[in-house]
């Protein structure tokens, strides 16, 4: 387990669901967060009682609808009363709208909002960081560069000094007819020239060449990533999202992820995700805070 410098205050918007409360409780118990639960206070207390959790461990702020809860969570972070914002039982769209609000939201000026996830897969020999399964549908070159930088930053927080980043395509062959590959070639040269730092980058690479040394040998492709990728950058949300969900469903993968581009870490998870995944997300956000 990574060491945390100090306790992080986490504001949870619309916090009355079992998985969220369970995950938060675990983090509070471990001693690395203080929780501010925002939602229908009666329901929060009831859920705690049902789960045998002492509700006095949390600060509870009453809010009678989703919107109010979200706005309150963002406001707390904005004015410095919370270090992390977490989405509870509210829809992602509503939640992100408040986060991205130009006046009252948490966006850094001119930043690209994107999502980086850390995947633990039993079949892979290390953590695999992925981007972007949740926010940018079809990233352009500038957005891809931001995605890469966020992922590199996260991998480095996990102690990978010079992460190997594979820019994922269907093949390793360069073609100007694939716009994403054109972006990839440009990014690789930027990495060559030090315009993107602290990484070893190559792409386009297919998933095998990115993560499987045997495929490298068979295909005889020379790549510095060499089947040992730390980060996979996907060309679209639609390719990244099923990748991680497939691994969670069929390969016992666990994902922890975070929104990047905000003043403070923002935790967005699918409402259906497990308590364990939510707990990992909380831990990850504390690491990045």
């Amino acid at each position, binding site marked *: 387990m990574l060491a945390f410098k100090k306790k992080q205050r986490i504001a949870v918007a619309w916090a009355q669901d079992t998985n969220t409360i369970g995950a938060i409780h675990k983090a509070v118990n471990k001693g690395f967060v203080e929780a501010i639960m925002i939602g229908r206070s009666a329901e929060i207390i009831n859920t705690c009682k049902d789960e045998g959790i002492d509700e006095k461990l949390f600060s509870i702020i009453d809010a009678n609808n989703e919107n109010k809860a979200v706005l309150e969570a963002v406001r707390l972070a904005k004015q410095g009363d919370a270090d992390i914002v977490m989405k509870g039982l509210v829809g992602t769209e509503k939640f992100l709208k408040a986060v991205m609000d130009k006046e009252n939201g948490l966006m850094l000026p001119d930043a690209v909002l994107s999502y980086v996830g850390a995947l633990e897969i039993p079949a892979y020999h290390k953590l695999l960081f992925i981007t972007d399964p949740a926010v940018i549908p079809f990233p352009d070159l500038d957005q891809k560069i931001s995605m890469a930088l966020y992922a590199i930053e996260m991998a480095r927080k996990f102690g990978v000094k010079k992460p190997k980043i594979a820019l994922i395509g269907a093949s390793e062959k360069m073609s100007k007819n694939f716009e994403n590959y054109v972006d990839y070639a*440009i990014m690789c*040269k930027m990495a060559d020239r030090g315009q993107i730092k602290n990484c070893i980058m190559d792409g386009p690479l297919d998933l095998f060449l990115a993560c499987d040394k045997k495929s490298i040998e068979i295909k005889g492709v020379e790549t510095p990533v060499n089947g040992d990728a730390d980060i996979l950058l996907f060309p679209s949300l639609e390719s990244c999202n099923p990748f991680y969900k497939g691994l969670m469903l069929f390969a016992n993968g666990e994902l922890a992820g975070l929104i990047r581009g905000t003043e403070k870490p923002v935790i967005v998870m699918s409402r259906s995700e497990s308590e364990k995944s939510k707990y990992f997300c909380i831990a990850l956000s504390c690491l990045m805070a």
Partner: protein
Amino acid sequence: MVLKNLNDLKRIVEGAPRKKLILAAAQDQLSLGAVVRAWKDNIIEPILIGDKEGIQNICVSNNYDIAGLMIIHEPDTEMAVEMAVRMVSSKQADILMKGKVGSSTLLKCVLNKEWGLRTGNLLSHFALFEVETYHKVIAVTDVAMNIAPNLQDKIAIVNNSVACLNKLGYTMPKVAVLGAVEMVNENMQATLDAALLSKMNQRDQIKNCIIDGPLAFDNAVSLESAQQKGIRSEVAGDTDLLLMPDIEVGNVLYKSLVFFAKAKVASIILGALVPIVLTSRSDSEQAKFDSILLSAASSK
């Protein structure tokens, strides 16, 4: 092997069977002078096509000894060029050279679909410079034919040039894709094309060479400059071939090397069935001679 100067080209042609060169519309003094000299030096076996009387007059007044040289009389310029191209396309010669005829007339014949010299490749200009201040000869393309090559054209131009350099003995020529800066800049198409060309080279989609770019002119030809900028590159400072972003840059570089740096230059057109010597009227006899030498050295 690396060529230190244009004279080194002679080592390539020495001992090899002499190449047959056809000079089309041969009644041109500087061209004749260069051809006769190359013939006397055993570099080529010339065939002259053009106005026989005009050719003989030039040779007499310039003391060119052409006894024993094959001359085909065809006073009409366009007919002379067509005959020359037809002879080359039917494998009766290895090199085509332009005499007293406009480039467009000659190229029109070269590109003729029935009897021209098309191979399906793009035609491109290839110039080889000997500059005192560089440690070896440096090839530059394209300074004269392709105006604003797109990525596909650039790939073809590199392939033409690399094939030529391979024939000159460079097994893995170092290709610098020139830009105004060595950084990738989204607003400069040349730098983006350079990134793509580098990646295609890494993936073996452009073979038999090492490509890096974008490189600014200084880091392409000066190791010191590249090191100062912290550029890690196999090509920087040791470039064999400079790929120009467009004809304006190429042409100005070419002329500034010749006029200010007193460079010697040899140039040919690549991408046709055979190398074509297509020097401009203002080129010196020496430049024409060196171009003939280059065409012979790069001819199969």
